[in-house]
Protein backbone atom coordinates (compact mmCIF):
# COMPACT_ATOMS: atom_id res chain seq x y z
CA UNK A 1 0.00 0.00 0.00
CA UNK A 2 1.41 3.42 -0.89
CA UNK A 3 2.52 5.50 2.05
CA UNK A 4 3.76 8.93 3.01
CA UNK A 5 7.47 8.90 3.85
CA UNK A 6 9.29 11.45 5.98
CA UNK A 7 12.98 12.11 6.55
CA UNK A 8 14.79 12.33 8.83
CA UNK A 9 13.04 10.38 11.56
CA UNK A 10 14.84 12.42 14.21
CA UNK A 11 16.53 15.81 13.89
CA UNK A 12 18.51 17.49 16.65
CA UNK A 13 19.30 21.16 16.05
CA UNK A 14 20.73 24.07 18.00
CA UNK A 15 18.34 26.91 18.76
CA UNK A 16 18.49 29.59 16.08
CA UNK A 17 19.50 27.19 13.32
CA UNK A 18 17.47 26.51 10.21
CA UNK A 19 15.94 23.09 9.72
CA UNK A 20 14.27 21.45 6.73
CA UNK A 21 11.92 18.53 7.16
CA UNK A 22 11.22 16.43 4.11
CA UNK A 23 8.20 14.47 2.99
CA UNK A 24 7.31 12.39 -0.03
CA UNK A 25 3.51 12.27 -0.26
CA UNK A 26 1.57 9.46 -1.91
CA UNK A 27 2.20 9.86 -5.62
CA UNK A 28 -1.28 10.60 -6.98
CA UNK A 29 -2.34 12.81 -4.07
CA UNK A 30 -3.03 16.48 -4.61
CA UNK A 31 -3.41 17.95 -1.13
CA UNK A 32 -0.55 18.16 1.31
CA UNK A 33 -0.41 19.08 4.96
CA UNK A 34 1.93 19.60 7.87
CA UNK A 35 0.85 19.02 11.45
CA UNK A 36 2.79 19.00 14.67
CA UNK A 37 2.34 17.22 17.97
CA UNK A 38 4.11 18.43 21.06
CA UNK A 39 4.90 15.50 23.34
CA UNK A 40 1.77 14.28 25.12
CA UNK A 41 -0.49 16.80 23.43
CA UNK A 42 -2.93 16.76 20.58
CA UNK A 43 -2.13 17.06 16.91
CA UNK A 44 -2.18 20.65 15.63
CA UNK A 45 -2.61 21.83 12.06
CA UNK A 46 0.16 23.97 10.57
CA UNK A 47 -0.48 24.40 6.87
CA UNK A 48 -2.19 22.94 3.83
CA UNK A 49 -0.87 23.12 0.27
CA UNK A 50 -2.64 22.62 -3.02
CA UNK A 51 -1.84 23.48 -6.60
CA UNK A 52 1.60 24.76 -5.64
CA UNK A 53 0.43 27.25 -3.11
CA UNK A 54 -0.61 27.48 0.52
CA UNK A 55 -4.37 27.06 0.81
CA UNK A 56 -4.66 27.52 4.56
CA UNK A 57 -2.36 28.10 7.52
CA UNK A 58 -2.77 28.27 11.26
CA UNK A 59 -1.64 30.93 13.69
CA UNK A 60 1.33 28.68 14.54
CA UNK A 61 2.62 28.97 10.97
CA UNK A 62 4.29 32.36 11.27
CA UNK A 63 7.02 34.00 9.20
CA UNK A 64 9.60 31.54 10.51
CA UNK A 65 7.87 28.70 8.65
CA UNK A 66 7.72 28.03 4.94
CA UNK A 67 6.72 25.14 2.71
CA UNK A 68 7.82 24.16 -0.72
CA UNK A 69 7.22 21.49 -3.30
CA UNK A 70 10.48 21.86 -5.18
CA UNK A 71 10.35 19.01 -7.67
CA UNK A 72 6.86 17.52 -7.95
CA UNK A 73 7.50 14.74 -5.47
CA UNK A 74 9.05 16.21 -2.31
CA UNK A 75 7.17 18.48 0.07
CA UNK A 76 9.31 20.34 2.60
CA UNK A 77 8.76 22.32 5.76
CA UNK A 78 11.46 24.85 6.65
CA UNK A 79 11.84 26.54 9.99
CA UNK A 80 14.20 29.47 9.56
CA UNK A 81 15.38 30.17 13.09
CA UNK A 82 14.33 27.43 15.46
CA UNK A 83 13.14 28.06 19.01
CA UNK A 84 12.98 25.69 21.95
CA UNK A 85 9.21 25.57 21.65
CA UNK A 86 9.50 24.19 18.11
CA UNK A 87 10.49 20.86 19.62
CA UNK A 88 7.74 18.45 18.58
CA UNK A 89 6.86 15.62 16.26
CA UNK A 90 6.08 16.95 12.80
CA UNK A 91 3.75 14.94 10.62
CA UNK A 92 3.28 15.28 6.90
CA UNK A 93 -0.03 14.13 5.41
CA UNK A 94 -1.51 13.88 1.95
CA UNK A 95 -4.93 13.29 0.50
CA UNK A 96 -6.37 12.33 -2.85
CA UNK A 97 -8.67 14.49 -4.88
CA UNK A 98 -12.00 13.52 -3.32
CA UNK A 99 -13.04 15.07 -0.05
CA UNK A 100 -14.29 11.71 1.20
CA UNK A 101 -10.82 10.29 1.60
CA UNK A 102 -8.89 10.51 4.86
CA UNK A 103 -5.57 12.27 5.14
CA UNK A 104 -2.74 9.73 5.18
CA UNK A 105 0.02 10.51 7.64
CA UNK A 106 3.73 9.78 7.52
CA UNK A 107 5.67 8.38 10.46
CA UNK A 108 6.78 11.84 11.51
CA UNK A 109 10.05 13.64 12.21
CA UNK A 110 10.92 14.17 15.83
CA UNK A 111 12.53 17.62 16.06
CA UNK A 112 14.56 18.36 19.17
CA UNK A 113 15.84 21.91 19.67
CA UNK A 114 18.73 22.31 22.12
Amino acid sequence: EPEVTQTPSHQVTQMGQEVILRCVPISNHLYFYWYRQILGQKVEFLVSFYNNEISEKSEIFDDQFSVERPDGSNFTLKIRSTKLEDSAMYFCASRGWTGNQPQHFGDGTRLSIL
Partner: protein
Amino acid sequence: ELKVEQNPLFLSMQEGKNYTIYCNYSTTSDRLYWYRQDPGKSLESLFVLLSNGAVKQEGRLMASLDTKARLSTLHITAAVHDLSATYFCAVRPGETSGSRLTFGEGTQLTVNP
Protein backbone atom coordinates in the same frame (compact mmCIF):
# COMPACT_ATOMS: atom_id res chain seq x y z
CA GLU B 1 -13.12 28.64 16.43
CA LEU B 2 -13.84 24.95 16.12
CA LYS B 3 -13.40 23.01 19.35
CA VAL B 4 -13.22 19.23 19.48
CA GLU B 5 -13.51 17.52 22.84
CA GLN B 6 -13.05 13.88 23.61
CA ASN B 7 -13.90 11.97 26.72
CA PRO B 8 -12.64 10.20 28.52
CA LEU B 9 -9.00 11.24 28.03
CA PHE B 10 -7.75 8.11 29.77
CA LEU B 11 -9.47 4.77 29.72
CA SER B 12 -8.27 1.62 31.39
CA MET B 13 -10.41 -1.40 30.73
CA GLN B 14 -10.27 -5.13 31.05
CA GLU B 15 -10.18 -7.51 28.15
CA GLY B 16 -13.61 -8.62 27.09
CA LYS B 17 -15.39 -5.48 28.24
CA ASN B 18 -17.25 -2.91 26.16
CA TYR B 19 -16.80 0.85 26.27
CA THR B 20 -17.55 4.00 24.30
CA ILE B 21 -15.37 7.02 23.57
CA TYR B 22 -17.18 10.28 22.87
CA CYS B 23 -16.22 13.11 20.56
CA ASN B 24 -18.10 16.43 20.66
CA TYR B 25 -17.44 19.31 18.29
CA SER B 26 -18.59 22.87 18.34
CA THR B 27 -19.48 23.88 14.77
CA THR B 28 -21.13 22.39 11.75
CA SER B 29 -19.20 19.65 10.05
CA ASP B 30 -20.04 16.79 7.76
CA ARG B 31 -16.72 15.02 7.87
CA LEU B 32 -15.42 13.32 10.96
CA TYR B 33 -12.43 11.03 11.17
CA TRP B 34 -11.13 8.58 13.72
CA TYR B 35 -7.42 7.83 13.91
CA ARG B 36 -5.36 5.45 16.01
CA GLN B 37 -1.86 6.28 17.23
CA ASP B 38 0.52 3.80 18.85
CA PRO B 39 3.26 5.28 21.06
CA GLY B 40 5.89 7.05 18.98
CA LYS B 41 4.12 6.15 15.76
CA SER B 42 2.07 7.84 13.10
CA LEU B 43 -1.69 8.25 12.86
CA GLU B 44 -3.54 5.41 11.23
CA SER B 45 -6.91 6.17 9.67
CA LEU B 46 -9.70 4.05 11.13
CA PHE B 47 -12.98 5.56 9.94
CA VAL B 48 -14.30 8.37 7.78
CA LEU B 49 -17.85 9.41 8.69
CA LEU B 50 -19.50 11.58 6.07
CA SER B 51 -23.15 12.06 6.95
CA ASN B 52 -25.65 12.16 9.75
CA GLY B 53 -26.43 8.70 11.03
CA ALA B 54 -23.33 7.17 9.44
CA VAL B 55 -22.18 4.00 11.16
CA LYS B 56 -19.04 2.10 10.28
CA GLN B 57 -17.59 -1.05 11.81
CA GLU B 58 -14.22 -2.70 11.59
CA GLY B 59 -13.56 -5.66 13.83
CA ARG B 60 -14.21 -4.71 17.45
CA LEU B 61 -14.55 -1.00 16.69
CA MET B 62 -17.70 0.76 15.58
CA ALA B 63 -17.99 4.49 14.91
CA SER B 64 -21.10 6.59 14.49
CA LEU B 65 -21.93 10.20 13.71
CA ASP B 66 -24.82 12.40 14.79
CA THR B 67 -24.36 15.75 13.07
CA LYS B 68 -27.37 17.29 14.76
CA ALA B 69 -25.91 16.61 18.20
CA ARG B 70 -22.37 17.27 16.89
CA LEU B 71 -21.33 14.00 18.43
CA SER B 72 -19.42 10.97 17.28
CA THR B 73 -18.86 7.80 19.24
CA LEU B 74 -16.27 5.06 18.97
CA HIS B 75 -17.57 1.89 20.55
CA ILE B 76 -15.24 -0.90 21.58
CA THR B 77 -16.69 -4.37 21.83
CA ALA B 78 -15.00 -7.15 23.82
CA ALA B 79 -11.71 -5.30 24.08
CA VAL B 80 -8.41 -7.08 23.48
CA HIS B 81 -4.89 -5.97 24.44
CA ASP B 82 -4.02 -5.13 20.81
CA LEU B 83 -6.50 -2.25 20.93
CA SER B 84 -4.31 -0.41 23.45
CA ALA B 85 -3.42 2.91 21.75
CA THR B 86 -4.45 6.55 21.67
CA TYR B 87 -7.56 7.29 19.64
CA PHE B 88 -8.16 10.69 18.11
CA CYS B 89 -11.23 12.09 16.49
CA ALA B 90 -10.70 14.87 13.97
CA VAL B 91 -13.18 17.19 12.32
CA ARG B 92 -13.02 18.90 8.97
CA PRO B 93 -15.27 21.91 9.30
CA GLY B 94 -15.93 23.15 5.81
CA GLU B 95 -16.57 22.30 2.20
CA THR B 96 -13.38 24.01 1.12
CA SER B 97 -10.99 21.62 -0.54
CA GLY B 98 -7.87 20.98 1.50
CA SER B 99 -9.24 22.38 4.72
CA ARG B 100 -7.57 21.57 7.98
CA LEU B 101 -8.39 18.82 10.43
CA THR B 102 -8.98 19.87 14.02
CA PHE B 103 -8.13 17.07 16.41
CA GLY B 104 -9.47 16.21 19.82
CA GLU B 105 -7.09 15.71 22.72
CA GLY B 106 -7.06 11.97 22.22
CA THR B 107 -8.22 9.08 24.40
CA GLN B 108 -5.42 6.92 25.74
CA LEU B 109 -6.84 3.42 25.92
CA THR B 110 -5.17 0.67 27.94
CA VAL B 111 -6.64 -2.81 27.78
CA ASN B 112 -5.52 -5.00 30.65
CA PRO B 113 -5.52 -8.80 30.57
